Structure formats: C-alpha cells, structure tokens
C-alpha cells in the first residue's frame, strides 16, 4: 500500500516539476513521501498540520466547512497542502518558478486517484 502511494507521488513530481510530495495523516504524521534529501518529511508534515489546523479554527469561527487547499509562497518556492476528504493531506513542495495553475490542476487529478485508493 505504501509503495502505491509513493508511486502516485512520484508521478506527480515527474509531471509537474515539483520538488517533492508528502502524504500526511490528519494528526500530522507522514504516511508516504517523496522528498529531496535535505528536507525532512516530518518538518513538512508538522508545518502542514499546524497551518491547516489554524486555518480550520478561523473557518469554524466563520461557521464554514473544512479547508480544501492551502498554499504558502516563499522566496524559495511553494508548499501546497490539499485535503483528501477526512483521510489525509497531500503536501507538495515546488520551486518558485513553477506554473502554479498547472501544478494545482495536476494536484486535483492526483487527489482523485488517492481518494479512490483510500476508498
């Protein structure tokens, strides 16, 4: 099962030019990851869990539903987190010169695949 998740992540990286991807459980633990050597999967997972939970707190205060997607742009690139129903969160690291529109579209496709895999 872990292998198949990693395969999906590999495919996403190959198709979009992203630097890495990680699949994180709702409690912030990494399920599967394909990341550059210098990036620790726990660091990405923890960052995603923290920002998402804060965003969700704001959303719940506004009486809105769950967050679907979150992206942070930094001087060196993007980190994009997308919810996969209640099962997990997909985190993608991308360089700052990436075509964001294209990346977001590819992420949507991958999410559908992962949703099917997770049942």
């Amino acid at each position: 099962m872990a292998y198949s998740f990693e395969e999906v992540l590999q495919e996403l990286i190959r198709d979009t030019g992203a630097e890495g991807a990680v699949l994180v459980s709702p409690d912030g633990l990494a399920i599967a990851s394909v990341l550059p050597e210098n990036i620790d999967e726990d660091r990405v997972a923890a960052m995603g869990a923290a920002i998402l939970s804060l965003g969700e707190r704001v959303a719940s205060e506004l009486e809105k539903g769950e967050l679907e997607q979150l992206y942070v742009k930094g001087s060196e690139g993007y980190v994009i987190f997308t919810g996969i129903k209640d099962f997990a969160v997909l985190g993608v690291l991308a360089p700052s010169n990436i075509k964001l529109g294209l990346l977001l579209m590819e992420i949507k496709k991958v999410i559908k695949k992962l949703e099917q895999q997770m049942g």
Partner: protein
Amino acid sequence: METLKEIEKIIGNLFLTTNSSFTGLYYEEEVVFFKTINKEKEKILPELISLLVRKFIKSDDLIGSPEYLFTEGKGYAIFLFNAGDNITLVTVIEGKPNFSLLRLEHDKASQLLKGLSKEIPSILEEKQKEEERKRQEELKKDTEEHTEIPSAKTQTKQQKDQIPEKQEEKRTEKQALKQKETTEKEEIDEDIKELEEIFSSTSEETIDKQEKESIDTNEKVQEQEEVIEEILEEKQQVEEREETPSLEEILLSDEALSEEVNPEIVENIRLKFIEGIGPVGKILFKKVVEKVDINLEKPYRHKVEELIEKLSEEITVESRKEDFLKYCRDLL
C-alpha cells in the same frame, strides 16, 4: 494620527476592492487595524488570525521568506500577504475568491504602506496602551459590580434617603421603650402599695395575735419580704435604665463630638495611595472605604485615621508606606 488615518484609508480600500468580510493589518503578529462585517466576532477573529499570521511568518525554514498564504474551503478563503517590514495584510473572503485579484490588490496596498511602515510600531504601542487602559476600566467596573460596592455618590444618596427612615425607626423605638418603662414602673408602684398595706395591717395587730399566728404566716411574710426585695431591685434597675443612655445615643454623641475633616483631604489621601500602590489602588481604596464605612462627603477624623491605617497596611513596600503615612499625618 495622520499615519493611522492613512492606514485606515488603505485597509478600507482593500476591504472594498476585495469584497472581503475581514481585512486587517498586522505588525509581527499583533493586529494594528482591521475592518470586518462580522461585528459580533470583532474580538475573536483578529486573535485567531494572529495565530495564523505567526505561523505564516515562521514558515520560512522550508520555502524561504514567506510571501503569501492562500487557503480556501467551500465558500470562503483566507489570504495573508507579506507587505515587508514585519507587516502582514490579511483578508478573509466569504464567497468565491479571486486569487489573482487578491494578490494584485494586496500588492498595491503594500506599496502604499511602504512609506508608513516606520510609524506602525508606535501606532501599535499607542493602541496597546489604550487597550490596557480600557481593560483596567473594565476590570474596575467588574470588581465594582461583583463586590457590589456602590459609588461614593450613590452611597451618600442612599444614606441620605435612609436618614428619614432611620429617624422614624428610632423615634418609634424610643416611644415603645418609654411606654414599656412606664408600664413596668406602674406595676412596681402597685406592688409596693399592696405590700405597704400588708405591712401596715400586720403592724396594727397585737403582738399576742402575732404570736398566735401560725408559723405558716411567718413564712408567708418571709416570702413577701423576698418579693419586695425583688421588686425593689427591679425598680432600681428601671431607674438605672432611665439614667443610662442607650448605645445608639452614646454613638451619636461620640460622632457629634468627633471632628469633621475636609473631604478634599480624603481625596488627597486617595491620590497619594494610588501613587504609592499603582492603578490597582483605585479598587483597593474603594474596598477599604467600604470596610471602614467612612462617609467620603462628611468624613470624621477618627474614621479618616482608621482609613489611613487600613490603607497603609495595603502598601507592601516599606519606604512607600512610610512616605504615605508621613504625607497623611502632615495633611491631618
């Protein structure tokens, strides 16, 4: 002041052009100014967003210095934009967001803020001071409400209102007491009369007759003597009661004898106390006033002295306490 107006204008404009439900300017993680349509969430929303801002600022270890954060769910989005110089612009959209427009408008606003960024920390400082002052006032209000300490004016008014009632009560009490005493006196007088009659009748009888009387009669006399003693004792007590003033009368006369102090002196004592103990002194002063039960509009010397003593007990720093006591002594 001018800078704040300028900031209000920029944020107001951003609020309108992005059609947001919340737009705010944060310095580091503190909100400087915000506009929102959620009036009932004016307190909680900026605080919650400040947590998100903090996380956003600190997310630089993974992707370098953060530029913006965009997050969306069904029918809403949150956008954080780093405007430089530790300033973050935040917009919350309730509806379908236009990400490109958000970026463009925030970029424009951040350009306008560039010239004002140096003054933002001082604006925040002033705002925090103002909030602290308000918080103190609220705390003071809460304390007053919870301890149910009426204000000096209300207290005085209540006291004034109660005076005629109290006087009426006193009058009624005095009348009742007098009536009781008169009844008692009459009863005792009657008893004495009866006893005198008995004695007189006894003295008229001859000694022979008396001797003939049974021992029972002697015993009766003895009993009557005891009763007389009791009655006399009662009479003496009533006389004493007539002579001794009531406790209320004593207190009233003491108060009347007590020297009245200028209320301004008490006000000066209050100010000195607050100076010695800090802003919390205002609350403590009221508590001590209530404990001492002093009339601030008509303070008597002995009450003022008691007030000073109790207040000085609240000052923990010895040198300040001495200074306070010396000041009060000089005043009096």
